[in-house]
């Protein structure tokens, strides 16, 4: 499965290429990836966890930069891992090509991904979406990190992670509770009380009020 992705970064092409040469940087940007050991000679032992809803696969293996051309700004990375529960393997060959583009740089990423075993057999076409999304996330984090400098935001390992959106909607404390909930302790309020309220239509009315107030 070939996944093509390209993006622009507001930084010098050589700087971007240098960034991508550092496996630590790439691992930090790759969703669900973790570098375990530097094996030397551009080889690393690492882990990648893929999670799509209830389906998870955790791959362990070795990634190696097999080709590096600083002049042409092309690098090829090969990674080979197997699922820790014996359910299959994953293999990726990623070719990165950085070219100057105006003020900044254009990164073309071509990933040839091969998944074997159960995940490949039950994908119902999902795996290509999942892989596309993972590479897409990698791209956006690379850009973010180069442009902003420093550490990338802490993101959970899941592909299709929920957190970004979830944090956008505020968790309301239990409506009847006057005080702010104490999350460190046991639940601040019996949820059953809350639910009885919900079922009694309280929340419905409450939500309606909210809606009206936002419309107003």
């Amino acid at each position, binding site marked *: 499965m070939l996944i093509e992705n390209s993006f622009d970064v507001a930084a010098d092409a050589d700087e971007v290429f240098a960034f991508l040469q550092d496996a630590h940087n790439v691992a930090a940007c790759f969703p669900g990836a973790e570098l375990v050991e530097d094996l030397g000679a551009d080889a690393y032992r690492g882990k990648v966890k893929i999670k799509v809803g209830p389906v998870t696969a955790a791959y362990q293996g070795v990634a190696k930069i097999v080709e590096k051309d600083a002049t042409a700004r092309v690098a090829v990375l090969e990674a080979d891992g197997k699922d820790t529960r014996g359910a299959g*393997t994953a293999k990726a060959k990623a070719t990165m090509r950085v070219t100057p583009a105006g003020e900044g740089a254009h990164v073309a990423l071509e990933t040839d991904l091969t998944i074997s075993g159960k995940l*490949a057999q039950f994908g119902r076409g999902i795996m290509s979406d999942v892989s596309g999304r993972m590479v897409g996330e990698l791209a956006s984090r690379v850009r973010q990190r180069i442009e902003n400098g420093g550490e990338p935001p802490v993101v959970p390992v899941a592909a299709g992670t929920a957190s970004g959106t979830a944090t956008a909607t505020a968790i309301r404390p239990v409506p009847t509770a006057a005080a702010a909930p104490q999350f460190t302790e046991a639940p601040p309020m019996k949820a059953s009380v809350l639910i009885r309220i919900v079922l009694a239509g309280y929340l419905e009315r409450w939500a309606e009020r909210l809606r009206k107030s936002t419309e107003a």
Partner: protein
Amino acid sequence: MTETVVPDAAMIGRRMERREDERLLTGHGAYLDDLDLPDALAAAFLRSPHAHAKILSFDATEALALPGVVAVYSGADLPEIQKPLAPKVQHPQLRDYPRLPMPPEELHYVGEPLAVVIAESRYLAEDALELIEVDYEVLPAVSSTAVAVQEAGPKAHSGDETNVAVVLSQSAGDAAKALAGAPNVLSDEFFVMRGGGHSMEPRAVAARFEPATGQVTIWDGTQAPHYARQQLSVIYEMAEDDIRLIAPRDVGGGFGPKAQFYGEEVVIPWVAMKLGRAVKWIEDRQENFITAMMERSQTHRVEVGFDDDGRLIAVRDFVEHDQGAYCAGLQVPSITTSTVPGPYHVPNIAVELKACYTNMVPTSSVRGAGRPQAVFVMERMMDRIAEHLGLDPAEVRRRNLIQADEFPYKVGIMFRDGSPLTYDSGDFPALLEGTLERIGYDEARELQAKLRGEGRYLGIGLSVYVEGCGLGPYEGAKVRLTNKGRILVTLAAAGQGQGYETVYAQIAADGLGLDMEHIEVKTGDTSRIPFGQGTFASRITATCGPAVMDAAKQMRQRLLDTAAILLGCDASEVDFVGDKACLGGNLEKSVSLQQLAQTANIGKHGITLPRGIKAGLETSSYFSPERAAYASGAHAALVEVDPETGEIKILKYVIGHDCGNVINPMLVDGQVLGGFAHGIGNAMYEEPVYDVEGQPQAASYLDYALVSATEVPPVELFHIQTPSPLNPLGVKGAGEGGTIPAPAAIANAVEDALRPLKARVTRAPVTPARIVDAIAAAETAAETAGQN
């Protein structure tokens, strides 16, 4: 339903309810996993996740440490049984690669077993599978015949120079010359997809070793128990009598894949012997999807030459056949090559088939076995000839059909049984005309024309076929009077739902002149009858039937002779009334079956037998047909296609079927209708897709569509009976005829419907998405043509 022409038949030809049903309806069937083996350990196989890989290292330390795990064996741990599982049907030029039960070094398809875990339960065995560490070197995989035939492409077996296992050729006349001189020549390329057997009960094996007797008892959900035992006796280097192989009384469907012999069948009994414990392996559906043998995948490049009246002059067909990772047998490609000419006069024919190794699960017979592909190709071309000449497709067929007075008809090529392809009997025109009449062909054509005006797309598809069946070498039966005075008919053949307990009791009843209630039928146990072949190729009725009839007739004579001596009369004066042999129909002067058993079988300790009585009321018979018989049939489908969604609605379907004489019409109808549903699956739904890496992509019923009651249309079924002259019952096979022509009939109907849109159907199954894509392609082609 026409009555049988077998003379003096009381039971043969009668619609009898089945004896098997009561237990199956009440949940008391005895399928392998239902058998009481209270101490049995469970087995689970570790299978290759790669289509082609070398095993670099294997470590089961963690798995072995898991509580409840009894043993883990890799292929390398069991070197004594790593012997080739021989191809069922061979060829002198076959470049064979040994198919080992659990290859210790190189694996050649996803799902190939490489280790087995034995544990206290299947749950624990599967836990242990996750703990086995294997390192693989992944090798390039051959994922289609298209890849296989590329000279520079990957090779299914490392180090090989070609993927072609063997080239099979058949010819009569001079097709090349005839094509060159033909006034009309059409050609096309057709692809038929793989498809599986999908018996509702997957495969299963259990075994227990009896140290006291040195015998191993094996329960195996196989279609061919004697064949399996023969293989095991060679691999284990054990006498065949020390291996008792039992196909359980109830096996949940076969359809071909269970007639093959697999590594699991070698490993499980061996491990049971090693451990001194009963061991049971029940294949789950996940395994079944990737390891049970499949069939069908072929690419045909066909050319037909014909005169201006649509009469065939020559057919030339180049076939690429997907053999899978190993050659489990050449029966399927071989049958394909001889099925191409079908029911038609083909003066010149040449078929060349390349059987190719690929890194997918090996192929072998699945209901239809090489025939649906050949019929698909020939019947698609019949329609193309009609289209080319502006003739009616039914008329083109009429002009080419072999006539009823031409039998026996020598086609000029060979059949897979080793004899010249010679149709024994049939009436193809009657089948075609009967089918046309019942589908209301002329009215359907009128309706089609009318609805086209309204933007609706009706199509009619026809398909006529001939099916070689009832193959040799032989099948046998034993008939015995038991000590309790009942007749026991023992067959080597094992059933998977065909109703053997009923059908063979019917035949035996006629042979014996006894009521069925005195007769019992036992099947599929190598300890009960020494020789047998197995249930495949729609062969049992035509081989086992005559054997049962003969053994039953012999037994009748033995019983009457014995009774005559006891009654002091001539055997010709004795006949049965109920379970008594009576002199002149007089119950006062009779001996019961039980008394006959008492006299001739049980005897009196040390006392001389009454004068003239022969000991041991047991007979046996083996029937060997001189060559295959040929069943035939015609299908007609009326469909409506929605060009927007590609949906195919089958509005009417007619099947004309000829399997010679019919033993039990209800069961024959069941065989045909069941086969038809399978055919609809092949025509429209079933696709075990593999990706370019050789990974199966449709390995569950969420992605692999088996037809349910809503997909199978009502069918009008009629029979004609042209008895086979090749066996005394005049019977032929009925198990596959429903399947064989269905993909062709549906594809013909769909293309017929879409003719105004010029969309082509070149592939089975034809799916909604492919229909819409084909319509779009035709539109694009028309636009391009318009621009030029």
